[in-house]
């Protein structure tokens, strides 16, 4: 009521204030830049150093004092990783697991969230509270029995323990984020479609999903990173080299290199950079979805 009247004026006032404060501080303050540059070097420097090392020859990486730039850029290192290490195999394994878990997590979380957001049923609030409570539960408590369960099912050393659980709910955070977003979509859209004879599943697929693109992208990013960067669960559940993910495979070859003594640092670091590339590209292209998702984690607290 009154707030609606007030908003335009308030907005204008805020804008002028913003402009004011902008003018006042627009002179760059050198005191701010010094720590910023040091921090940028601290965060970015190791990356740069690693990229450079990955482009050196095996002899050059052990030079002392170390040099930043390679004398000749050994681009061949990035070719060699595909032959020296079964890199293509690990990449394929990681891709299979990542794509299957992403699909499972997003589809099942969207279905569950739709159920919580759009249907009335006895015990709904209590059940949703239970969803949220699992957010605080450290997974360690369920780790051992889950392992035993998968062992009884004969699923050890297969991708099933890494994939199947995500098809059953997709995780509390994803359900929570989807539900919050679905609730903001006016119910009138559903009703209109229902009058036209659409089933509830059709409402979800044709109305809710297209309107929720941002939250789907946000959760797709998180699902990708969760699975691509996962180390712990593949470590526990996978035993044979042929089934290893990138994370496990590289770790395995690093250990082998430590034992064997032949310098393979340049190759391992090249492989590490290739493995990191999708994450960096994803972050740089979809930054705003990232930030939104992380801030949403803050809201729940």
């Amino acid at each position, binding site marked *: 009521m009154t707030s609606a009247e007030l908003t335009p004026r308030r907005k204008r006032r805020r804008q002028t204030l913003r402009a004011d404060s902008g003018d006042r501080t627009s002179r760059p303050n050198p005191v701010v830049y010094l720590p910023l540059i040091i921090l940028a070097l601290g965060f970015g420097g190791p990356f740069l150093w690693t990229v450079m090392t990955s482009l050196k020859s095996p002899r050059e990486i052990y030079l002392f004092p170390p040099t930043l730039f390679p004398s000749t850029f050994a681009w061949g290192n990035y070719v060699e990783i595909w032959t020296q290490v079964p890199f293509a195999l690990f990449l394929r394994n990681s891709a299979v697991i990542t794509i299957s878990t992403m699909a499972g997590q997003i589809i099942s979380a969207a279905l569950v969230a739709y159920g919580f957001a759009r249907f009335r049923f006895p015990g709904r609030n209590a*059940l949703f509270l239970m969803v949220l409570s699992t957010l605080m539960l450290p997974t360690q408590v369920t780790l051992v029995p889950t392992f035993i369960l998968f062992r009884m099912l004969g699923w050890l050393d297969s991708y099933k323990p890494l994939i199947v*659980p995500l098809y059953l709910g997709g995780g509390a955070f994803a359900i929570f984020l989807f539900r919050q977003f679905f609730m903001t979509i006016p119910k009138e859209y559903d009703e209109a479609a229902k009058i036209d004879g659409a089933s509830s599943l059709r409402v979800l697929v044709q109305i809710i999903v297209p309107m929720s693109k941002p939250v789907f992208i946000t959760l797709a990013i998180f699902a990708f990173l969760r699975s691509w960067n996962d180390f712990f669960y593949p470590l526990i559940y996978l035993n044979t080299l042929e089934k290893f993910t990138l*994370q496990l495979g590289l770790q395995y070859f690093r250990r082998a290199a430590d034992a064997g003594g032949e310098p393979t640092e340049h190759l391992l670091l090249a492989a590490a950079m290739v493995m990191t590339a999708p994450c960096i590209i994803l972050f740089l292209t979809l930054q705003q979805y990232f*930030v939104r998702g992380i801030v949403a984690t803050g809201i729940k607290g």
Partner: protein
Amino acid sequence: MAGSSVALRPARKRLTDLERKEALSGYLYISPWIVGFIVFTLGPMIASGYYSLTEYPLISSAKFVGLENYARLFQDATFWKSLGNTYYYAIIIVPVGVGGALFCALLLNQKIVGKSILRATFFLPSVTPVVATTMLWMWLFNPSVGLVNYILSLVGIKGPAWLGSTAWSKPALIIMDLWTSVGGNTMLIFLAGLQGIPGELYEASEIDGAGSWRKLWHITLPLLTPSIFLTMVLAVIGCLQVFSTAYVVSSGQSSVGGPSESTLFYMLNLYRHAFMYYEMGYASALAWVFFFMVLVFTLLQIKLSRSWVYYEAGEGTGI
């Protein structure tokens, strides 16, 4: 909304056909979660509680031993060692991590050139796969040709063996994990919090003659306390679970958690008992002790928060 549902309640005692149909669809949609919750959360929790009271070497069936595992745990020197290592790590990484993230956010919130590039640079380490960051840092920490010791040698310091040294392995891991976490989610939560502080407050304080430090101390920090509290809770839970970096670093050396158990954190100890020694009963007891530890820390923080976290009266965070 709330009012109408209360009014409806008497009529809802008996569901109409339409309502029953709606409820049924609702249950159908959430059924994947219900199954997942029973199979992967509730069931395992009950099972883990039971296993913690048994001796269960995995090859034979579980044998009930009462509280023996818990008694053993308190006499187990490795347990105390892992707890000590974890607290050493936590006591440094929580304040430095949260403080560092706050510092970065405050700097990035200034009117500066190249803000988005700087923010991306700070954030990138946190999306990098853990095996990649660990290999990167193992290379930087290389005692003879690593960059870290080279830089130290430039100022006349002979650097330690870092990850190979009992005294320096934990500080090295802390540096690694700070690098990956300080510019990550915590910083973004602070940045969002900073953007939520109304400009009017600064305006008003300036009229009263407040300088930058006073504004920081009397406006920015008090209004950020909810974010600081949230990130502290998350940081404590997260750091007690430290595993992957320490595992990757030490598995190349003699044993997991090495050198000489100096990086044997709580979760590594649990991992060893569960997946290397296959002592499922003892590992479950370790898991439950861990669970209560996390619970106590979280409740303690919530209790303490009442004395220092500032919540604006009335208005919610509303986003």
